[in-house]
């Protein structure tokens, strides 16, 4: 048993600092953008290509909430939201964001007011309620891109529905932005979006090497731009740099975890307020999170972009987010990841305030054990509410999990 937990991890990628700058710049611009550009809020899974092509300044409350979580402000903001009547049983991202709004405080300086809110339920239904609430508080128009849930493969009428909604969005967004949509510009945005998505997948897939040059925790941190700055040239350039640095690590045989013994998949959202602790704890047990389906989600559907049929392509991309797919599909994906990334186990974060991700985990765990003979760990916690986290209990379970993997 290693008593001293230092020196277990390789130093963070140099690119991490640059990513921090990219996001900080975006937030900084947001501090003074009202009156300069039109502002669109979007849910992390919402289609933003039309908005980008119309030069909206883009802001996503999801990213802001995750940032607050990572800065350990989730519990404090949740309490403020609860004081205002919001239940502890709703999504902790929403509670964090409500709390920040009521308190008038945010780690990003000042949040730009929206001229338009675009929300898609391709990650959950809860997000609709959250964004409709913000629309009511801020008196801003809310446009819903309704993505029917895919219990099976996507059907024609489902794709058609999303496409029609995108077409309905165009005149609304044009009116608010005061500009006319250029299809040329839209295609350029799509091309960059696809490039971002493809690059992101390449980066994630590099972790199939042994030892994994980057871990899921690196990816949780690096995913900021793919969520908030998707389709930006700066993101493409950034990811190219990340890939170069990762390839350098592979060439030098450097692993994210120095004594890599076990490789696992992380299912569900990260535990934002304990990223460093979890990373070190797992590393002390010789465990590297080689891949997570949460990070994978931002690149996997990029394959559906279509420059010849731009709107239809966008419709398919956003219909096929992993969270909009069945529990059976998620299991298949996990099985493919076990093979591709040579995994020894699966950690299923039973996230108390994310039902769409957490329901189905028990059956998935049973299937993984029965069909692939690999152990899983169900870990009860929450993505943003640190009051749901018990260090001792988590520590106990992680150790038992490591022992199960041998």
């Amino acid at each position: 048993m290693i008593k001293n937990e230092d020196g277990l991890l390789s130093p963070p990628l140099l690119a991490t600092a640059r990513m921090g700058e990219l996001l900080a710049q975006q937030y900084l611009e947001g501090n003074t953008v009202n009156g300069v550009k039109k502002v669109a809020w979007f849910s992390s899974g919402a289609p933003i290509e039309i908005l980008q092509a119309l030069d909206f300044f883009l802001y996503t409350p999801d990213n802001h909430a995750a940032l607050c979580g990572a800065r350990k402000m989730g519990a404090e903001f949740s309490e403020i939201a609860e004081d205002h009547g919001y239940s502890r049983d709703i999504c902790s991202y929403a509670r964090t964001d409500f709390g920040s709004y009521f308190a008038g405080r945010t780690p990003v300086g000042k949040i730009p007011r929206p001229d338009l809110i675009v929300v898609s339920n391709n990650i959950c239904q809860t997000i609709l309620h959250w964004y409709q609430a913000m629309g009511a508080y801020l008196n801003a128009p809310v446009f819903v891109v309704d993505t029917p849930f895919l219990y099976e493969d996507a059907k024609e009428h489902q794709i058609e529905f999303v496409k029609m909604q995108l077409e309905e969005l165009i005149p609304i967004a044009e009116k608010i932005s005061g500009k006319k949509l250029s299809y040329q510009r839209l295609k350029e945005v799509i091309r960059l979006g696809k490039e971002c998505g493809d690059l992101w997948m390449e980066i994630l897939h590099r972790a199939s090497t042994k030892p994994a040059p980057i871990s899921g925790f690196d990816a949780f941190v690096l995913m900021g731009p793919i969520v908030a700055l998707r389709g930006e040239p700066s993101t493409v350039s950034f990811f190219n740099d990340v890939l170069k640095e990762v390839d350098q690590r592979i060439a030098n045989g450097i692993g994210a975890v120095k004594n890599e013994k076990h490789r696992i998949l992380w299912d569900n959202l990260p535990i934002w307020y304990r990223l460093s602790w979890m990373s070190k704890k797992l590393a002390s047990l010789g465990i590297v999170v080689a891949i997570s389906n949460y990070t994978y989600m931002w690149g996997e559907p990029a394959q559906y972009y279509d420059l010849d049929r731009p709107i239809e392509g966008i419709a398919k991309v956003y219909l096929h987010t992993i969270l909009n797919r069945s529990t059976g599909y998620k299991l298949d994906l996990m099985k493919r990841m076990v093979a591709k990334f040579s995994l020894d186990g699966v950690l299923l974060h039973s996230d108390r305030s994310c039902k769409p991700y957490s329901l189905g985990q028990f059956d998935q765990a049973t299937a993984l054990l029965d069909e692939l003979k690999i152990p899983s760990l169900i870990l009860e916690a929450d993505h943003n509410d640190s009051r749901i986290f018990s260090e001792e209990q988590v520590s106990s379970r992680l150790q038992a999990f490591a022992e199960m993997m041998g």
Partner: protein
Amino acid sequence: MEIPTRATIIKQVKKSGLKIAAVLPFHYPRALLRVYGFHPMEIWGPPHVDHLDGLQHFPEYTCKIVQNATRFLLDLPTATIDCILIPHTCDSLQGMASVLKDFIKPDQPILTIYHPRGRRESDLLFMEKELKCLAKNLEAVSGKMPTNEEFSAAIELEDEATGLLAEISQHRATYDVSDREFYTLLRSREYLPTEQFIQVANNVPKGIPELKGPGLMISGIVPEPLELFDRINDLGAHVVIDDLACCSRRIYKTFKEADPFKRMAKQLISMPPDTTVSTPYRERFDYLTQQMQKSHARGVLVYNVKFCEPELFYIPMFEQTMKDAGWPFLFIETELSPEIPQQVLNRINSFVEVLS
């Protein structure tokens, strides 16, 4: 007012040769099921389900409607129901349908229906096609291929029942029945064959009910157990207006259209402002304020199923809006236990005292 129980109806329906579709909450096309030879039996829980084989498919923070319904369905003898229909109401029912389809795989087919969240052109067109998709699935199970006339007849019948439901809900104060009897009637729509519901609804005793004290609006998902209404009456209040998912939120508008799918689609997306379709907040609260004013209700009681997120998001602004208008507001959570906990009764008691 004699209303048969669910058990009696199941036997009766099976004898008549109809198939039974177990339907989860809560927006779904009754007429479509009917025309393909399915009688819908809705499952809202039920309360106090014994977990006979102990198997847990869902974590503890999943609502009891999903937990109990799953348990209940799996414990029923296979021959009782012919298919299970799960509308896409929320994240939890989404999970339930997916887990049933992909993992549990009961003998009965699991059918789903997605009702869109808006009332735009795109929503209407999608609803139409989604209904056609469901129709194909129902045809595969039943082997039926209904004519246009059969469609019209089925829709007309459901429209008649919906009309009665609307009439009864809006004029509660003209029916001489206790609140419990009233809700027993409203909730019988969940399982009574439509003709029988129409008959019962047409024969509710008219008159001024003997209900004392302040009138309430009741909102939320499902009032279980029905004893809740006896207790509300005992504590000195009564219900004058309803905003429950199982009752008034399914008072759809009726339309005349030649094409039955277009007609059903228009209707299904015309529900009153509802949290599960994420109706914009202002629209929902304006509607509820109107309801309060029309009915002269003096306060609002929300009876929610624990962990039901669609309701929970609206509660703070709902409460604020009502309180600003001078109406006291009480929020209660239930885990569908067969008895009402004493703590809940205490709170209702205090609330009624405030109103009186």
